[in-house]
């Protein structure tokens, strides 16, 4: 149900995002989804990659602060109101979203969205109950 997201602490400094991305490139790791949360003085890069363990090893070795977080990736109908339908389900069932972002690519005619919930287990349960398709870990690796 859950997939691994890597969060990376970035100072707002020229070239930091490049450093991180080029490190992934060198290790032949592919970014599937990406989001940057920024504040006045620092940013948090959140990525879903095809090889999370290898990515973590590379970050640790390079002294880059990163951590794994459980997130849920769901398929969203690529049509007006598609995302709203899912949000309604979550809202009705009282599931709180910390943040969300889109995938870089999509499989077939569905769009993929990454959700970070404060209660991942409950969210997975609710989404399954309402027949929202959740992307499995294996699916992400093969994308």
């Amino acid at each position, binding site marked *: 149900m859950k997939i691994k*997201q890597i969060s990376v*602490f970035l100072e707002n400094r020229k070239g930091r995002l490049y450093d991180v991305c080029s490190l992934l490139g060198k290790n032949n790791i592919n970014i599937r989804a990406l989001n940057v949360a920024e*504040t006045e003085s*620092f940013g948090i890069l959140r990525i879903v990659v095809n090889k999370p363990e290898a990515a973590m090893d590379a970050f640790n070795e390079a002294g880059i*602060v990163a951590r794994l977080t459980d997130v849920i990736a769901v398929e969203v109908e690529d049509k007006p109101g598609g995302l709203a339908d899912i949000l309604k389900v979550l809202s009705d069932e009282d599931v709180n979203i910390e943040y969300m972002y889109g995938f870089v690519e999509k499989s077939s005619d569905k769009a993929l969205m990454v959700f970070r919930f404060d209660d991942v287990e409950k969210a997975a349960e609710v989404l399954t109950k309402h027949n929202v398709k959740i992307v499995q870990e294996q699916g992400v690796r093969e994308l």
Partner: protein
Amino acid sequence: MIWNEEFECMSPADIKRVQSERLKKLAALVYSNCKVYKDKFDKAKVTPDSIRSIDDIKKLPFTTKIDMRDNYPYGLFSADQKDVKEIHVSSGTTGNPTLVGYTKDDLKLWGEVMARSLACAGAEPGDTVQNAYGYGLFTGGLGVHYGGLEMGLRVIPMSSGNTARQLKIMQDFQPKLLTCTPSYALYMAEEAKELGIDPKKGNWKVGVFGAEPWTEKMRAEIEDAWNMLATDVYGLSEIIGPGVAQECPHKDGLHVYNDVFYPEIIDADTGEAVAEGEDGELVITTLTKQAIPLIRYRTRDVVSITYEKCKCGRTTPRISKIKGRTDDMIVVRGINVFPSQIEHVLLGIDGTSPNYQIIVDRQQHQLDEVEVLVEVDGKLFSDEVKQLEELKRKIKKEISAVLSIAAKVTLVEPKTIERSIGKAKRVIDKRQM
């Protein structure tokens, strides 16, 4: 004018006699009234009887800020708490703050030495002083206040801050004296110009500036901006507050009132006296204080001293401006800051001590700014912005609570803080003084 000619112009033989008498009494007082000192004397195998002249002071043990912290709150008092009429608290290195207390006689002494200082700077009875040192637990405001009252000045108790109001009051009451930190004097002059007020247009005579280190360059800037004489005052709350030493208009060293505050200049490592004129750590013994008399208190301030008679007529020894510290304390906006205090705050946040660095900066004629860089390790890191923002807010709040300083907190990546020989440099002082 010389406020107390008897003591400020005393002959070397007479002052030595006075100091010797007072030291004998002091040794007896602390030995019988203060357990901490009794133990210190016993450990050093010295009895009050063996103190026969001021030269015997070398037999006595030193007192440090650590002693004040370890014996907080009342351990170093030699007076009964019912006789203590005022207390002040300043920051300690870590944990306990530094508490100082005053009996009625101590407050009288404080007024006396600050009256000497204001007179030494050039004040005359009847002059008006705008006192922009902070009132409250900080000793600056009230010290000047008591001295001003003692010597018959008209005191405007402004306290620090609220610059627009300071400028308005100045224009309305035309004070002759300004008392504040030197950086605040420059800041106010800058603000005045911004508001279209010419700081030179006033009735200014002299400023008594202190509570932080400053340079001859800053003196020249202040004198030029305000069209006043800028003098340096020295003091520390442990000894009494401001009023330990003061420059006269010759600006050739700060006169130490050595009938009440006996100065020694020592090698910080060996504890031995250095020669006249050589740099060393200033050590002070409060010869007449009652509530917390201190024996050979290590100020950690580096100065040199001269015993030559000054052109102003005073025979009191003169210390140089503070040339440095023998510890890692820095002074920010007149507030003493120890890096260990910041470390203590960070330790309290989640039990770990992340790497940190304190950057102090001051733009031209502006006030000091403090930035604390904190390395975010795996433990502190959260993937949620709000939690990192909360962490920043918490550190900032704690620092403000402990130091009364609004610091900017910046989270940085690990290993970004410069290290020298494996050890991080804790303080980067970029201030141009």
